[in-house]
């Protein structure tokens, strides 16, 4: 029997599910090997009987925890898709501020109608078996993870910094060009795609398991960068692992 797969989304832009649609004709091929039983964005049918659940988005309110726990109870394997689900991502920027203030700023005196708490990766709520990082996910990496899961193998996600790939690609170092980036501490696997396009590494794949912060500090000192400049870049994607951000009380 074909494995039954389902897609779910929480607080996110749904850009990761879009990357799966963007597989175009290869998605049609993939569909021959699996049975999609739930994908609200694309299909009307829905079933709670599935083997693999792919989840996009962060958990940003207590009321969504129950839905996540149900998915966990139904699925044999849970895969987190994208920065919001794997590391909290952009959603965690609001964790640096008082949550009531944030609600008041957006919804004014009606703020109590709108529930929110500190944004978090789904792993903070349920057990996650595999993660496909990046904002948005790289469709090739998604395919390789999907293939590994379908053949019973463990998907491979690198645990070295983006700088390794960036150097191999022959890019001039971003710092050398007078810009700031977080490539030295960010998980590789993207092929340094943003730097290749003339941009900087924003850190969307999250921190590597043991970031060499001393080496990063040396780089920053070498280029006379202010702590504030670097902190601003750290706050974009690393909010959940940053001790300066608020943490849930438990």
């Amino acid at each position, binding site marked *: 029997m074909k494995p039954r797969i389902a897609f779910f989304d929480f607080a996110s*832009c749904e850009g990761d599910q879009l990357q799966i*649609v963007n597989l175009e004709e290869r998605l049609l091929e993939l569909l021959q090997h699996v049975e*999609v039983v739930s994908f609200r964005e694309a299909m009307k049918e829905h079933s709670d009987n599935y083997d693999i659940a792919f989840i996009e988005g962060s958990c940003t309110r207590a009321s969504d925890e129950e839905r996540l726990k149900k998915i966990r109870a139904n699925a044999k394997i849970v895969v987190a898709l994208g920065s919001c689900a794997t590391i909290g991502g*952009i959603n965690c920027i609001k964790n*640096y501020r008082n949550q009531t*203030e944030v609600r008041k700023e957006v919804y004014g005196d009606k703020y109590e109608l709108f529930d*929110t708490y500190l944004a978090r990766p789904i792993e903070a709520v349920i057990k996650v078996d595999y993660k496909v990082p990046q904002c948005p996910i790289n469709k090739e990496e998604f395919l390789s993870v999907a293939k590994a899961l379908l053949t019973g193998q463990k998907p491979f996600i690198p645990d070295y910094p983006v700088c390794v790939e960036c150097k191999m690609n022959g890019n001039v170092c971003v710092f050398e060009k007078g810009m700031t980036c977080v490539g030295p501490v960010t998980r590789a696997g993207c092929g340094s795609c943003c730097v290749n396009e003339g941009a900087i590494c924003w850190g969307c794949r999250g921190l590597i398991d043991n970031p060499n912060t001393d080496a990063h500090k040396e780089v920053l000192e070498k280029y006379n960068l202010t702590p504030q400049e670097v902190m601003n870049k750290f706050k974009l994607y690393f909010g959940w692992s940053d001790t300066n951000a608020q943490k849930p009380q438990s």
Partner: protein
Amino acid sequence: MHKNHNLDIDLHYITRVEGHGNIVINVKEGKIEKCQWQVPEAPRFFEAMVVGQKWDVLHHITSRICGICSIGHTLASLKATEAAFGIKLSERDIKLRKLALHAENLQSHVLHLGYLVLPDLMGVGSVIPLASTHPAEVKTVVRIHKTANEMSDLICGRTTHPQRLIPGGFTKIPSKDELKNLKDALNAEWNDIEIVAQLLLSLAPKLPSFTRETEFIALTNPNDYAFYDGEIGSTDAKSASVDRYLEYTNEYIVPHSTAKYAKHARESYMVGALARYNLNHRLLTKKSQDIAGLFGLKALCYNPYMNNIAQLVEIVHSWEDSIRLIDELLADNSYDIQRTNMHTNVPTYQRTNVQQGIGAVEVPRGILYHDYTYDDKGFCTKANCIIPTNQNHANIQADMEALVPQILDRPKNEIELMLEMLVRAYDPCISCSTHMLKVEFC
């Protein structure tokens, strides 16, 4: 309608739309007690997130409001920042940005019509069964979608969350050879577009013929069918500069929705492809006007279901206008000797005494505004963004209230389908609409 007619519809999390929305209808003894379009999406508070952030990261953050229209959000954001700091763009970069918007419009409209709307017209639950029953049609849709995405990749670095678009222009631009290849790919695509147009033409009778008068709002300018720039145009009022957007949006909160609603001259208005068509149809390319004629689409069209057809008309327009823009870029002798821009740690321009900047662009679902205020060090102190789908929520609600009494005597599944198709016709981007809400208390 029967006096003893009872009906309960609770479409929780309507499918084949971006984001979470519910349709709730309760009819007791022939009387409509509840008729509601609800938006329970988890809010994300982007406007509070960007406060305290520096001018050179705002577009990166706000791009994440929406996966489907991330190019549009990035451009509205950049235009707001550029307006605040008086940053000017070259003609070349404006043309490239227009191409980027066309690419996004093509991608988004094809996705909506081919993957989300077509299943309704063909009586199935999703595009997946169509892949086996109508492989040729599905593959044609996939090919158009793929070309549009490749166009985004080429102009923006990637399709979703563009990398090359930054304040002042681009970090990298496509080579002339790449542009020539893109032009060839677009030219080769006409046959596919015609196939999809013919398929939709054969299915168009299935679109309900419901009409309700309303106001339409879209960017408008005398030079082109506006996507990148223009004034705020309305079918009910004179046009005005984008600085006056608050007068045209008037957002308000309703308890059953985490997204806000908007109104202008009437209780509601509509934005998106049909609004653009109704206001700017005279500036469409020849081929796209022909397609409109084929479907009998005429301004002013008050049938919201025809938004689907207006999207098809715009696919043809974006396709044809892209080829024109590429030709102009190819003819520009200074194209590849002009500079590109860089991310920098310090602003490289003189600050103006203007601290507020407003940017508006037309994204696939309608007019989008970003409005930022910066302090003298270039950090954002206040942000307001108004999303197309927010502007449509009240119009969807008003359409439902007008439509439900007209169709109450039909079978429940038919009523459900018509209501779902109505919501889908607006191509709502619900996660967007809950992400950028801000109340102004005057």
